[in-house]
């Protein structure tokens, strides 16, 4: 039996380590599709203005659509409280020590909600530009947010999350001049890591770019409904 130890057995696996998450995300995506829920996953650093923009989106879209939000946070309920004032269905996902959201957290948080009543579901990921990149949450689009105060090299510092995003939204654009925001350099940096990524500039304070952003979401939802209808 000695040669067996010299000939160690190899078992082929070829399995994605995040298979469980990805399978669950696929199931969620199917459920969202069947019930007509358009899902947007928002990722950013802490302080990029995610909650402020989300409040605005929930308020505006809430006038015409069923809107809901899941808010990932390490500990507090503060963000959810702020968001509830918009009148939307809001749930907090307290992750404890986990620095990102996973598909099973989304699934658990949907319990008791009638998805048929929801047109838009926003997922506010934990404020972190590294970890959320690896996890599919069953979303239709992943939006990466940066504020003008973060510096032009931010996309290059966190390339993986930018590369996994579908859209980039630049927030607090009203402060651009004050902080010397170099638009061209920022857009260039985004394109180095995610060639062709659509870039939108918004300011919740002045309202700049918000109409355009909302219309974009509505158009995406409309296109999504067509694919649902044709399936």
């Amino acid at each position, binding site marked *: 039996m000695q040669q067996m130890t010299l000939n160690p057995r190899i*078992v082929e696996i*070829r399995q994605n380590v*995040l*298979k469980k998450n990805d399978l669950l995300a696929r199931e969620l995506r199917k459920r969202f599709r069947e019930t007509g829920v358009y899902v947007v996953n928002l990722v950013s650093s802490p302080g990029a203005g995610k909650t402020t923009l989300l409040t605005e989106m929930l308020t505006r879209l809430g006038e015409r659509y069923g809107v809901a939000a899941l808010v990932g946070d390490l500990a507090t309920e503060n963000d959810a409280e702020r968001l509830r004032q918009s009148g939307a269905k809001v749930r907090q996902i307290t992750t404890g020590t986990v620095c990102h959201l996973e598909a099973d957290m989304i699934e658990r948080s949907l319990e008791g909600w009638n998805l048929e009543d929801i047109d838009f579901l926003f997922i506010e990921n934990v404020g972190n530009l590294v970890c959320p990149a*690896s996890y599919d949450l069953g979303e239709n689009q992943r939006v990466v947010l940066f504020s003008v105060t973060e510096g032009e090299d931010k996309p290059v510092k966190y*390339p*993986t999350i930018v590369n996994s995003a579908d859209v980039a939204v630049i927030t607090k654009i009203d402060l651009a001049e004050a902080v010397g925001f170099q638009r061209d350099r920022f857009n260039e940096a985004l394109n180095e890591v995610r060639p062709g990524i659509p870039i939108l500039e918004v300011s919740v304070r002045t309202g700049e770019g918000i109409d355009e952003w909302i219309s974009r979401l509505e158009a995406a939802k409309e296109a999504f409904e067509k694919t649902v209808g044709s399936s």
Partner: protein
Amino acid sequence: MHELSIAHSLVEIAVETAENARMKRVKALYLKLGALSGVVKEALEFSFDVVIQGTPLEGARLVIEDVPVKVFCPDCQEAHKLPEPFPMRCPVCGTRTGQVLEGRELELYSLEGGEGDAADDAKPPNC
């Protein structure tokens, strides 16, 4: 640090596979890690060593194969490996391209184990 969650998943898959294959002892896990996987290699190695304590994988090695980014260049009409994951430009003609063919892998592709129980491995070769 999501590498800890990933290390847990890795160990879970490996333990299950080893049991199904009746592999009593796992010597090594072979993992393909893409440059765009969003996983920091050192953090994963550290997490792995912590997570395997007290599991059937205790003492196993994690062997990581780095997978570079491979993109399709619309100008050259060819696939090219990038020397660095970013910038996303064709290394031959410099055209920007976001068509990623490889580099997102986070794949456990094989386990290496001893045939018999641990005692077999401890015996010196019979010469």
